[in-house]
């Protein structure tokens, strides 16, 4: 059932999109090269290496155990699996034979060297904002890394998405090429932050809600998205976003993977490891300045949690959670995250929080914070009902407010995470 709905929807939109294209609307109008908002290192290779950090290229283009940037990491979408491309300089398997213009077109318009459409799993909807100079520098760097002749497996996408030309319609509906245009009413730092966040950083790929066809919701940028059964939290100034974080808090999180509010983990791990911890202090500051300028989203309205569920959840919380997170939900800063005011705990969609309880989670180890503090899995220990109760309790205690969690939410995630376990199950005595 999961896959039929998007397929049907796509068929309908195909028709509508075809009309739009016929009407001559094209997303591929040449855009002017924007005023450079970029690092000033003169050496293009060195600059390109740093741009690869900003873009977190390794996060998707290096598969576990594979050669750097040789691709092959499977990305799951509701349309099937896409394997990331080899972007090493190998002339056949990689991009060694691509010209600078072809590379720029991939970044700017989402087209392969042969002109065929790339899928937006490659985030060209953000990379289009990158300047031509940065695109050239990035390519210059990629041509210097060791070539790998590894060819990733073919994608396994459903019809009609498996036909690359279908992206013509998708692009017509959801994509507009164009480099970043700085705003004269904002500071240079804000513009630099916006250039990174909305461009190479492609933060919205996870943090912006998506429509049925996986395109960004234009009205809700960075207000929290769902990807591969994780909810990436709201990054606006909302109470369940970054409202309680200071600019320094954001900088510390990006630099060390932790701050007084939160420990980075789950899907953010790879971003922290390959990208934000490697950035310059100035860029982290500028990202924080930009994020702090985002107007708060509309917070979810709490419908009030049933009293008996809260009582039961509170008892479970004191037994199972309070040793680390504290009876008052304050946690221990940078060791055990606070649940009081936690963004993850207060997202409208409780997926991330329930997954943490079911499967456990590990804080990302970074150079500054090398200890991978971990939360143990509770799937083997707590029932769906108990997890719903304790999650509801946390979402509505310590000043938090979020809709209750249903037993069905937990059961569904238990099913999904068993199918895609994210970490080793704890070794119960019987299994030894």
């Amino acid at each position, binding site marked *: 059932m999961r896959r039929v709905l998007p397929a049907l929807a796509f068929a309908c939109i195909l028709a509508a999109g075809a009309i739009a294209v016929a009407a001559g609307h094209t997303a591929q109008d040449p855009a002017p090269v924007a005023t450079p908002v970029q690092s000033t290192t003169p050496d293009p290779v060195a600059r390109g290496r740093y741009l690869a950090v900003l873009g977190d290229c390794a996060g998707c283009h290096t598969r576990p155990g594979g050669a750097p940037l040789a691709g092959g990491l499977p990305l799951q979408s509701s349309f099937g699996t896409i394997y990331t491309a080899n972007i090493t300089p190998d002339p056949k398997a990689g991009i060694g034979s691509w010209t600078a213009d072809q590379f720029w077109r991939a970044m700017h318009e989402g087209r392969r060297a042969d002109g065929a459409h790339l899928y937006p799993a490659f985030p060209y909807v953000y990379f289009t904002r990158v300047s031509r100079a940065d695109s050239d520098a990035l390519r210059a760097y990629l041509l210097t890394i060791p070539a790998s002749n590894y060819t990733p497996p073919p994608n396994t996408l459903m019809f009609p998405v498996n036909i690359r030309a279908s992206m013509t319609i998708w692009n017509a509906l959801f994509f507009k090429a164009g480099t970043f245009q700085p705003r004269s009413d904002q500071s240079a730092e804000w513009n630099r932050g916006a250039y990174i966040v909305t461009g190479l950083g492609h933060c919205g790929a996870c943090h912006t809600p998506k429509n049925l066809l996986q395109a960004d919701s234009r009205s809700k940028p960075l207000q929290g998205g769902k990807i591969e059964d994780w909810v990436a939290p709201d990054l606006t100034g909302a109470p369940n976003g970054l409202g309680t974080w200071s600019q320094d808090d954001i900088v510390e999180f990006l630099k060390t993977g932790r701050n007084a509010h939160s420990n980075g983990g789950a899907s953010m791990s790879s971003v922290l490891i390959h990208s934000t911890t490697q950035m310059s202090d100035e860029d982290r500051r500028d990202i924080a300045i930009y994020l702090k300028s985002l107007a708060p989203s509309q917070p979810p309205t709490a419908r009030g949690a049933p009293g008996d569920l809260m009582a039961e959840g509170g008892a479970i919380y004191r037994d*199972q959670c309070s*040793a*680390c997170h504290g009876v008052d939900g304050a946690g*221990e*800063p*940078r*060791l*055990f995250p606070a649940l009081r005011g936690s963004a993850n705990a207060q997202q409208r969609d409780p997926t991330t929080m329930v997954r943490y309880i079911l499967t*456990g989670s*590990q804080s990302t*180890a970074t*150079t*500054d*914070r*090398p*200890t*991978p*503090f*971990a*939360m*143990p*899995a*509770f799937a083997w*220990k707590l029932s769906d009902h108990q997890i719903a109760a304790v999650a509801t309790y946390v979402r509505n205690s310590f000043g938090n407010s979020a809709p209750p969690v249903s037993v069905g939410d937990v059961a569904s995630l238990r099913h999904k995470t068993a199918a895609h376990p994210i970490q*080793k199950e*704890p*070794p*119960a*005595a019987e299994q*030894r």
Partner: protein
Amino acid sequence: MAQTLPKTDAVLIGFGWVGAMMGQELTDMGLNVVALEKGSWRDTPTDFATTFAQDELRYYWRHELFERLNHETLTFRNNDGQTALPMRHLGSFLPGSNVGGSGVHWNGQVWRFLPTDFQARSHNVSRYGKAAVPDDMTIQDWGVSYDDLEPYYDKFEYLCGVSGKAGNLGGQIVPGGDPFEGPRRRDYPNPPLDMPYAPMLFAKAASETGRHPFPHPAANSSRPYTNPLGVQLAQCTFCGFCEKYGCGNYSKATAQTTILPVLMRKPNFTLRTHSEVMKIELSPDGKTATGVTYVDAQGREIFQPADLVILCAYSLENVRMLLLSDVGKPYDPSTGEGLVGKNYAYQITSSVNVFYDDKILNPFIGAGALGMMCNDYNGDNFDHSGLGFIGGGYIGLMQTGARPIETHPTPNGAPTWGSGWKRAVAKNYLRAATISTHGAVMSHKQNRLDLDPTYKDALGRPLLRMTFDFTDNEHKMSDYLTDRAAEMGRAMNPREIKVNKRAGSYDIVPYQTTHNTGGAIMGANPRDSVLNTYLQSWDVPNLFVPGANAFPQNAGYNPTGTVAALTYRCTDAIRTHYLKAPGQPLVHA
């Protein structure tokens, strides 16, 4: 035919506390280091998660964290008149296995030995005369002083984030700390743990009777702590599951919580688990270690060549590996020749239970090194004239967590089984506490380690044979400590006390301490020691053997702090001297 791997700069045999310290220091020097651990990988979230770490049946009764005796054990006898038999169930001591070693299930008791402990022979002879040290008491000076080790004790205490109160800061006695300790350069990195009721009652009684109580130095963190490597420990929750358990709360200092998060990220460090070293290979002249041969998980024999071999398994296994590898000459008590296996020592413990009617002590609140202690009767802190023994031990009331399967205090006269026993346990569980004594064992001519002539391990190698008994010195000393403990127990004004002296021969069945020392001892010259004071083999200079095996005799303290200090002194010597002239002795005989 063993497969030969590419040579590495250094190979570590065993990957517990000492292996982790060695790995961290040697990789910092730029060396490529391979660690070989016969057991499995273990980390906090996977193996000691708070959701199941406090499981007495699994860990206390079924010994999950300890050496698997069906694979490898040792044989034991009290004296040469007996035939040693293999231990088939652990009892008196509990060596760990797997990554982190015994350091995973320790209590976190971090002590410094007394300055006089390092001059055990010369100090006692000069103060009490030659007769104070009988001929068959084979104690000797260490060849290092407390001052030599002070910087390295300090380094370990800051690595672990030890919670405590200094008693002697640079020679100034500080109220509230241990006035008998050697001078320290600075206070502990964290304040003492909050103290429960029972230890406070003990401290009051000890003070009122003229002793000097102070909080036990604890590698159980009293507050969130980031160590010099950037690794973080969390505040202890007093869950009461330290000894024999892994800490799921990141509060007890172990290799996992202090070093491994940094070490495992280093590109010049490699850990191979399920890799059991068979022997250290020597050059034809026997003066250079060429590497080690080990058996991997598939049973393949593999030779790992190395420039530097560090033997850092458990102290007993270190001695066995030297014997199996023909490094040095085995000790023979009948001729007095040979040194490997000589001066095996242990510790002697006793206790006094106090029972109240009117005080609820909540003994389940606990931490491994939580308690109030006094060292008035440790080492040579008191006048031994006329007592007939040397050495001593600490006395203290520790509250390590009265885990329900293990803890069932009953007074004298209570039934030992049935409903009467159950009633006595129920009545006393919340109202009882235990004062313990922890005494030194001097080395003795007959107490030793060698290879068993009969029994072999799963890989066909002879087991280690332990020949050990307490001597008059230990019994007199322990009885003296127990009498002092009883005095303090009575001064606590309980309903009654119960005195548990250590009588008779050493018995390997009841748990006492996992403080096995000696067998490959250090010293100032090769005539009476296996290792120089940098823990370098006198015979094979590119072999170092850090561990409690180096203690010439034991002291009245837990050994880990001193093992760590000796290890850091060793790594410092490797960094500053050995690597400038590799393969050369650091001390010329």
